[in-house]
């Protein structure tokens, strides 16, 4: 019997995402909800549809006070907006600096610097733009009260990054001192932004056993972690993902294939070793870059090329968007589709606004935690021993609390669903199981202590426990 209804999506935690499309529209998608199971909706739309204003690149600086959003459009302008209400702060033309027709030389990469240069005033912003033909420039702008007034301060630097090819991807690392660029017929280059000098160039892999050389064509790149500028991942047109390590060698350290179409976007996780790869036919997967092994694919009837992937800074959620005009939100842990929003146009970029609805999020934390979020917290920050303690306590308390719908159970709901189920079985049986659990817990606490020094101790213990619980 075929399934006749669509899969219901469980909804996502409160978040705010900005999407950019080929008609130059910026759409704000928000998910609000007490329980963290909100259905995301389009709440705002900025701009008028105009194909010449197609958004090519976007960058956000989402600090707490006075956040900024930079958007590069096809007609050669770079607009700086307020990401909260969409007010245009100022817009500058890219063509005037380079003296080239902007239509022929569209922007390939854009970065809005979050860090303030100390000598500059507080109300200024620094933009790095990189065009397809390889003209990179860093410009600072003074933002005055009146939106129209823009004064370009002295520190404007321009240099060339493309050696005859076309730049397709560029990225600035977390410390904002290094700049990465690459593209069609251009190897990956790392630049020092202080001196605008090339500090490293990649070397193409050798010819294969048949003597065939695959031409250089990088389509996407990202740094692996925020603190480390030495490791980065690049996706190529020949459906290969390559890991480069500046400190090790010029050739890729690891390179592996992913499906049959060109890699179109690569994004890193917060943990520094998981990467998300999206390709031209709408396949999205996560890889462990240390081993190059596929962790799993994100399945959800997605069939349009994935142009952009964004990782939420707090929740274990990624957003992907592309030519199928859907914004899709995925759970990183279970790789389940949380929700999809149809945005009607071919999308080019997606960004998260991390400062969204702090107060709501806090409420959500204190009342009933979003399960995924808690999962992450448990695995990452708190040592496994601590969690067991609380459970032991619960074991003692349980009899007292069993009648009054106890709070602790509510909080730990998602993790201990099976325990709740036990509540329905006759009480004698439950006692037994509890005793058993107590014994096991002690044993596990020891092993947990041992293993906690290891990297993945927590995970292992957890999986063991769950299996035991199932047996009971």
């Amino acid at each position, binding site marked *: 019997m*075929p*399934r*006749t*209804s*669509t899969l219901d999506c469980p909804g996502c935690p409160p978040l705010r995402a900005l999407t950019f499309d*080929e*008609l130059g*529209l910026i759409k704000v998608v928000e998910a609000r909800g007490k329980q963290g199971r909100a259905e995301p909706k389009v709440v705002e739309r900025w701009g008028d*549809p*105009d*194909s010449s204003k197609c958004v090519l690149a976007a960058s956000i600086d989402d600090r707490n006070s006075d956040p900024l959003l930079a958007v590069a459009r096809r007609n050669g302008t770079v607009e700086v907006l307020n990401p909260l209400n969409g007010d245009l702060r100022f817009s500058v033309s890219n063509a005037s600096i380079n003296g080239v027709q902007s239509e022929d030389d569209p922007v390939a990469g854009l970065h809005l610097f979050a860090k303030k240069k100390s000598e500059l005033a507080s109300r200024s912003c620094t933009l790095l733009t990189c065009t397809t033909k390889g003209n990179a420039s860093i410009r600072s702008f003074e933002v005055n009260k009146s939106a129209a007034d823009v004064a370009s301060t002295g520190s404007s630097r321009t240099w060339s990054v493309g050696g005859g090819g076309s730049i397709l991807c560029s990225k600035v690392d977390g410390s904002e001192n290094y700049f990465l660029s690459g593209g069609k017929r251009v190897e990956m280059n790392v630049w020092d932004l202080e001196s605008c000098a090339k500090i490293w160039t990649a070397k193409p892999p050798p010819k294969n056993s048949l003597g065939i050389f695959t031409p250089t*064509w990088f*389509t996407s790149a990202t740094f692996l972690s925020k603190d480390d500028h030495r490791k980065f991942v690049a996706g190529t*047109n*020949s459906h290969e993902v390559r890991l480069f390590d500046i400190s090790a060698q010029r050739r890729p350290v690891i390179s592996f294939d992913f499906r049959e*179409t*060109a890699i*179109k976007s690569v994004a890193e996780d917060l943990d520094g070793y998981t990467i998300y790869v999206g390709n*031209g*036919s*709408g396949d999205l997967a996560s890889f462990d870059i240390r081993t190059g092994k596929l962790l799993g694919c994100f*399945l959800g*009837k997605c*069939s*349009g*090329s994935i142009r952009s992937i964004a990782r939420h800074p707090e929740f274990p959620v990624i957003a992907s968007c592309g*030519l*199928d*005009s859907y914004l899709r939100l995925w759970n990183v842990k279970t790789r389940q589709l949380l929700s999809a929003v*149809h945005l*009607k*146009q*071919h999308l080019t970029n997606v960004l998260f606004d991390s400062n969204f609805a702090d107060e709501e999020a806090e409420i959500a934390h204190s009342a009933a935690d979003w399960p995924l979020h808690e999962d992450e917290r448990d695995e990452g920050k708190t040592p496994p021993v601590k969690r067991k303690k609380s459970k032991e306590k619960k074991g003692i308390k349980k009899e007292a609390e069993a009648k009054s719908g106890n709070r602790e159970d509510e909080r730990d709901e998602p993790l201990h669903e099976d325990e709740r189920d036990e509540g329905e079985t006759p009480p004698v049986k439950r006692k037994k199981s509890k005793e058993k659990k107590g014994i096991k817990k002690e044993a596990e606490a020891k092993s947990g202590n041992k293993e906690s020094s290891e990297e993945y101790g927590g995970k292992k213990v957890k999986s063991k426990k769950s299996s035991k619980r199932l047996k009971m």
Partner: protein
Amino acid sequence: MGGNDKRKRSESEGGDEQPIEKKREILPSMIKNKEKRSAIHAKLKQQKKLEKRKKAKARDAAEKRALELGEELPAKKIPKTIENTREFDETVCKPDDEELFAGNDADEFSSILKRERTPKILITTCRFHSSRGPDLIKELLSVIPNAHYYKRGTYDLKKIVEFANKKDFTSIIVVHTNRREPDAFVIIGLPTGPTAHFKLSNLVLRKDIKNHGNPTSHEPELVLNNFTTRLGHRIGRSIQSLFPQEPNFPGRRVVTFHNQRDFIFFRHHRYIFEAKETKQTESKGKKTKDAKGESEPQGKVIARLQECGPRFTLKLLSLQHGTFDTKGGEYEWVHKPEMDTSRRRFFL
């Protein structure tokens, strides 16, 4: 021991009546004896038939009574079909969607559909083709005005795209044959337009159609049916951009692309309006009525169709962003097997 068995058997025989009754209630397919099974099955079928007839009779009677009494007829029941129980799709185009029209204005076909460019089509084939392939191309040339056939030779499709761009073609059609039978159809929009890749099946050529007509060289009218979603809309526009936007109505030629359950049916007809005279002769007795109706046009005008040209079915396999590029291409839509989890899900 044997006595025990006998007793058991007799017990089971004694208690047989109840299980048989149960069995009859369950399913005839569970009966192993073929004759019995078929007999019971036939009986059940007969029963169902009678019930159905009864229902229909009751319905007809109710209708008749309503007619006599001048009441409102009972509402006609709409049969459930796969199409009208189709899965909800939020991408279905709505007529009040301003973003849709803005998107239409900005897309690759708008210059052709706004009549700024006249469509000029290049038709070519796969590398080796024979038999029904050339026949289909001959007929396509007669269907699509301003279409030009170029031999494929050994050129890459990318080179052909370049060539066509230079010569100001607006679209390329590639007919792909496999084992002397056309089986794929590619429509490439130029210069930047999307590439739609179709599967072609059920091809019937003109000479195999009975009483077929021969098309004239007038510009045909175009009928695009049921392209509802955003994807369907886009496919519809790409097909629309193959044909001239001003049909030559005296030619009375119609080309139809009818979408049903994601299959696009291609038909090519000539039509004619004829005043039916037979009716007038019949209605001689009702001259009074005719006298009243003389102010209206006389007789009944009917349209007669004559099929001409090929007949085939297309099914979309992928829609690629940009011109033909299998290696680095980005797809707007690809058919993936995981989409086929429901019979009621359609994409066009």
